[in-house]
């Protein structure tokens, strides 16, 4: 008998709905944050490089493309942070009922927007300019 090929993870035969949308978004934002981590490392290394290196970093961080990436990283962070807490709460055994999971999904979306707007506006307007 021919053996059926084993299902591979992720085995995408699900209906597209909020659950797997949020789940894949957790992955995508995680990947974005791994890239954003490189910017943080670059920033730290630029500080160690002295005033000239830091000045170069400031110019780079002020470029529209990089500013866009930083904004994207902020939203990704806000989402991954909130949804990550949701996952930790699930791991602790709470909020797994369908109604609760749906409510926490909306809570995550709302909290992501709020957190992004609050941190973003402090960075932009709170003390004048990014980096």
């Amino acid at each position, binding site marked *: 008998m021919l053996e059926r090929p084993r299902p591979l993870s992720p085995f995408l035969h699900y209906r597209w709905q909020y659950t797997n949308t949020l789940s894949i978004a957790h992955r995508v934002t995680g990947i974005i944050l791994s890239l954003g981590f490189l910017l943080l490392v670059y920033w730290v*290394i630029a500080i160690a490089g002295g005033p000239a290196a830091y000045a170069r970093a400031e110019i780079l961080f002020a470029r529209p493309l990089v500013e866009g990436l930083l904004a994207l990283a902020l939203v990704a962070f806000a989402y991954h942070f909130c949804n*990550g807490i949701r996952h930790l709460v699930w791991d602790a055994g709470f909020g797994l009922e369908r109604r609760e999971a749906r409510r926490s999904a909306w809570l995550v979306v709302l909290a992501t927007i709020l957190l992004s707007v609050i941190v973003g506006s402090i960075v932009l307007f709170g003390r004048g300019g990014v980096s």
Partner: protein
Amino acid sequence: MSLNGAVGRGSDKGSAKHGVDHWWAQRATAVALVLLSVWFVVSLLSIPTINFAAVTAWMSRGWNTVPLVALILVAAQHSYLGLRVVVEDYVHDPGRRIALLLLLRFAHTLIAAAAVIAVFEVAFGGVA
């Protein structure tokens, strides 16, 4: 023949045939990152400007140096664990898979080491 029974052999293994250490490390670093990332954002937002002098002074204070190094190490590990799952899920060719997993490991180790050394230089090297 092994003297272990089937239950004994499988007791700490999931269906993925490796232990719970990956699962546990991912959660442990996640909990640490909740605290460390809140500290990082609040701490950086609370210094008046982030020009060179202000940032070096911020980084040199011990109560900032320690959590910053912790943040770098824990974030690198969390990133490694997460990207590893992505590679394991989507890259099925054994050669490419192993190459990518090795690359992830090396890259995360090197990047974290470079960042930590940079923080130490600022904190102890008198860069400012």
